[in-house]
């Protein structure tokens, strides 16, 4: 039986990656693969890295175990527990990283280690925020992408411009694509053999045959290609593919054609979509597997189509939180679609994020992107945007804005380790006014920003040695035409994002210093610093007082809003449009990923009542438990910032009580909240709709809440997987609702 089988196939799908069984005759074990990759690294020290990378990827594709199952429409690939750590990355790329740092940036690496350990900065080489040109992938398929690269190579040869570098580039693409086609042939042979017994495997064999020969011709082939390209690029080639693409637009032409020609029915395509979504769900990695829906064409007409609804409905029915879905929000979105999205969010589908397109377009255009490119932008990762098919984006480093206060209090040193991580701004007795303290804070932040740019920049110019990208590059026409790796100048737009973290905590700490030392004069800076050094020991009353001190960012108070906007802009002005080492530009993000937790762990107590090691504020949101004036005030505060300065990302986390989202009134209120956020310039917004009683009950009875999920930052986790301390933070926030 081929159709209506999802529920009976679910046990296989659930175990497909987590507890797989593969025929050992189909390839090597994961341990053998790792050993083989180690050998490739050792044997190829003299070869150019694009050549080695392609050899490594080809090696994995040729030897990884495979399984075409009658219980699945999508092929199975072994070694998941190893693959998810990206074995090529682990065995080869990370060693190249070491080499590149030693060769070009040993001093920067030394400083990077200190900053990372102290939580002042968080930096590592990043290649993980780009999206292939899905249009090209679907139009050309694997063979077409290979042929296009061959054609471009030939043109260079004829023109006498086929340099040694270009030869290496094209050879690497050829090696990878030849291996991909061999890989498809292996899968196809197995599918054909099993197809004698199982009709679905026969269908899979036919699908793979088409993909071996060219572009997809129907919905099934399109989804299989999307899945295969994503999987190989993400987990073998080792460059995260930060989106499955705008799946509704990608699938719709095939859907229409299949219905017209009777290839598949609506319900069959629906079932294929649910198997597809299930792949991402079971592959789950904490950063999630995104796809996005919606958008408008150049005339302003919505691109929402029947497949947009179909995907939402299947996602809803399956109760998934990965893939995570982003919605391109604008006024052209059909009301029915908006209502469906918001209804899902309020029922707990909080992995859905909203991206406000009018402001995204404005922000992108202010960085030199054309209007059309901005309209057609890709939404990727958590909520990031980029030009489709002709851009790379890397998240090069994170700056801890709250650390600046600690650095002023310790004359440029980290309070916990004593390491020098900033500049000497003088003894505390020298700061006779808050303005003087604030100026010193800005000096520390300026220094950290410069450090982030210098350290990340020290390796950004060496991407070809760090992690060449043959597979990704092959999709980017600009790259293939030039014969230049996409990460090494082959894209029109190469944006390097610096993530500015913990802004609300920084403002709250500054306001606390102002109040305690300069407004009331109750403590000297030295006394305050001594209290912080002791982690508030013996000063619990003062700590509680500072925690509830009402000047906290996110409550639409003039002073804290002004400082929030000022420090965020201060950093953005130093970062934006600064040329990067890989011929692109720096952009600023206010997204902090996990760094609000990690940097908090490495930082001393701070004046706003935060204890040593506690987390900071998340993204652009208020610090946990301080949004006393509620959601509307929070939106008003954050949109006081000059949002177009933050092309990298500008995400707001909103927590709502279920009563604020229930009924028609609740739906209308959510809509109005998003629209006002968008009207005021906000870029991205997502919701957690939750009740403190439910969260408490979930702590007591985890078995009853196996599906309860919360959106942490740009991704979702199951409530039961959160550490107790993080659960308590959510409860503290929910108590204010």
């Amino acid at each position, binding site marked *: 039986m081929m159709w209506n089988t999802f529920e009976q196939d679910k046990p296989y799908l659930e175990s497909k990656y987590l507890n797989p069984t593969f025929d050992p005759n189909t390839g090597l074990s994961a341990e053998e693969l790792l050993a083989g990759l180690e050998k490739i690294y050792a044997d190829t020290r003299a070869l150019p890295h694009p050549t080695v990378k392609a050899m490594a990827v080809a090696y994995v594709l040729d030897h990884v175990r495979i399984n075409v199952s009658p219980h699945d429409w999508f092929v199975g690939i072994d070694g998941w527990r190893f693959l998810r750590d990206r074995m090529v990355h682990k065995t080869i790329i990370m060693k190249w990283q070491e080499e590149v740092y030693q060769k070009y940036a040993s001093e920067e690496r030394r400083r990077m280690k200190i900053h990372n350990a102290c939580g002042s900065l968080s930096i590592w080489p990043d290649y993980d925020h780009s999206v292939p040109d899905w249009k090209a992938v679907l139009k050309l398929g694997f063979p077409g992408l290979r042929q296009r690269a061959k054609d471009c190579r030939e043109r260079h040869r004829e023109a006498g411009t086929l340099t040694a570098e270009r030869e290496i580039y094209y050879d690497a693409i050829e090696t990878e694509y030849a291996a991909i086609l061999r890989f498809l042939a292996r899968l196809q042979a197995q599918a054909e053999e099993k197809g004698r017994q199982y009709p679905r495997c026969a269908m899979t064999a036919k699908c793979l045959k088409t993909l071996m020969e060219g572009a997809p011709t129907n919905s099934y082939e399109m989804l299989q290609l999307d899945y295969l390209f994503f999987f190989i690029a993400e987990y073998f080639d080792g460059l995260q593919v930060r989106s499955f693409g705008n799946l509704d637009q990608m699938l719709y032409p095939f859907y229409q054609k299949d219905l017209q020609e009777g290839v598949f029915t609506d319900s069959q395509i629906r079932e294929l979509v649910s198997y597809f979504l299930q792949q991402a769900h079971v592959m789950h990695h904490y950063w999630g597997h995104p796809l996005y829906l919606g958008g408008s064409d150049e005339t302003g007409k919505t691109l929402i189509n029947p497949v947009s609804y179909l995907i939402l409905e299947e996602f809803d029915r399956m109760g998934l939180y990965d893939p995570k879905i982003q919605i391109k929000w604008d006024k052209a979105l059909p009301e029915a679609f908006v209502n469906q999205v918001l209804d899902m969010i309020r029922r707990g589908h909080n992995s859905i994020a909203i991206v406000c397109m009018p402001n995204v377009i404005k922000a992108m255009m202010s960085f030199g992107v054309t209007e059309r490119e901005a309209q057609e932008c890709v939404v990727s990762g958590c909520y990031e945007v980029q030009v489709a098919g002709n851009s790379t984006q890397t998240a090069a480093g994170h700056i801890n804005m709250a650390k600046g206060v600690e650095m002023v209090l310790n004359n440029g040193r980290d309070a916990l380790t004593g390491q020098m991580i900033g500049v000497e701004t003088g003894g505390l007795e020298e700061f006779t006014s808050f303005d003087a303290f604030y100026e010193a804070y800005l000096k520390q932040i300026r220094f950290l920003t410069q450090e982030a740019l210098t350290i990340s920049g020290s390796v950004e110019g060496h991407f070809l040695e760090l992690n060449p990208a043959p597979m990704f590059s092959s999709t980017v026409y600009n790259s293939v035409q030039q014969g230049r790796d996409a990460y090494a100048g082959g894209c029109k737009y190469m944006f390097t994002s610096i993530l500015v973290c913990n802004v609300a905590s920084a403002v709250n700490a500054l306001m606390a210093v102002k109040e305690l030392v300069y407004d009331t004069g109750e403590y000297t800076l030295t006394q305050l610093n001594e209290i912080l050094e002791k982690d508030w020991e013996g000063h619990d009353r003062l700590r509680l007082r500072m925690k509830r001190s009402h000047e906290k960012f996110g409550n639409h108070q003039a002073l804290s809003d002004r400082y929030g906007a000022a420090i965020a802009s201060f950093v953005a002005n130093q970062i934006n449009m600064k040329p990067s080492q890989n011929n692109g530009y720096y952009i600023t993000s206010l997204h902090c990923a996990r760094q609000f937790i990690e940097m908090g762990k490495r930082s001393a107590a701070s004046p706003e009542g935060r204890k040593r090691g506690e987390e900071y504020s998340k993204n652009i949101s208020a610090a946990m438990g301080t949004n006393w004036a509620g959601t509307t005030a929070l939106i*008003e505060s954050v949109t006081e910032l000059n949002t177009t300065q933050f092309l990298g990302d500008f995400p707001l986390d909103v927590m709502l009580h279920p009563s604020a989202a229930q009924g028609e009134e609740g739906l209308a209120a959510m809509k*109005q909240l998003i629209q006002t956020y968008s009207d005021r310039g906000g870029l991205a917004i997502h919701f957690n709709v939750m009740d403190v009683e439910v969260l408490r009950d979930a702590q007591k009875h985890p078995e009853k809440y196996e599906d309860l999920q919360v959106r942490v930052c740009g991704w979702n986790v199951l409530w039961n997987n959160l550490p107790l301390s993080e659960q308590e933070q959510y409860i503290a926030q929910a108590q204010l609702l």
Partner: protein
Amino acid sequence: MKYKAMLMDVKRFAIHDGPGIRTTLFLKGCPLKCVWCHNPEGIWPKPQMAYYLHKCIDCGECVSVCPTGAQTMTEEGRHSFDRERCIACGACAEVCLGEAMLRYGRTVDLEQALAIALEDAAFYGSTGGVTVSGGEPLLQAEFVAELLTALKARGIHTAVDTCGCVPWEKVEKVLPCTDMFLYDIKHMDPRQHRQLTGRSNERILSNLIRLSELGARIEVRFPMVPGCNDDMEQIAQMGVFLSGLHIERVKVLAYHSMARAKYAALGAEDTMPRVDTPTSDEMRAAVEQLRQMGVNAVSG
């Protein structure tokens, strides 16, 4: 700016006090004393202190700022609050580290109230706006009229949430500046009404009739309290009465006892019925009963 108001509380992002996203200003003082009242801090027209014992961490910060000696510490280091001595100045609430002391009631003038009401104007859109509630806001009708007139002049939708138990002149004062009335009906029987709220319902019903005759936009709210006003005969009578008026809809609100802690905090006698929240079936039955009488009823 002749008048001032005694403001009890403000709720921003209110979505159940009229259409759209609203800001609700709760004014202090109410002529009724409903046994189930979930805003008991709104009854007394002057400021008063609430003491949430479970939040007190015995920090003693309040003791040094209290001007009357109402706040003291025992020899064992436990905090003690003498309500008799308290003048509700609110100094203790300013310094209370556990947020156990809370002051309900502050005087605001028109400018201050307008600033509060306009803070979220960006969110009101075409449907939302400002609601004045209570307590009973029409006890301060002159101030409400000034506030709502100023809001209407700025194109903001206005609503008054009233129990209706005020002289008609008070209602009349706000008529020109009120886009919508949220009007409570608690019981149709005057004797029962008096028993449950301390006052008869005659004035309430006659004011509602007059409002309806004048074409005001009205949403009636019926707080359904098991054992007090949930018998079907009573609800049917209400349906008959309301069906003869121009009522946009009737919202049936389910009683809950979540406000019980407030009574203890205020040092007030807890009058809240010890009954369960109506079940969804019971709510549905009440709504259906009203609908059968030709009333557009919904469950709130």
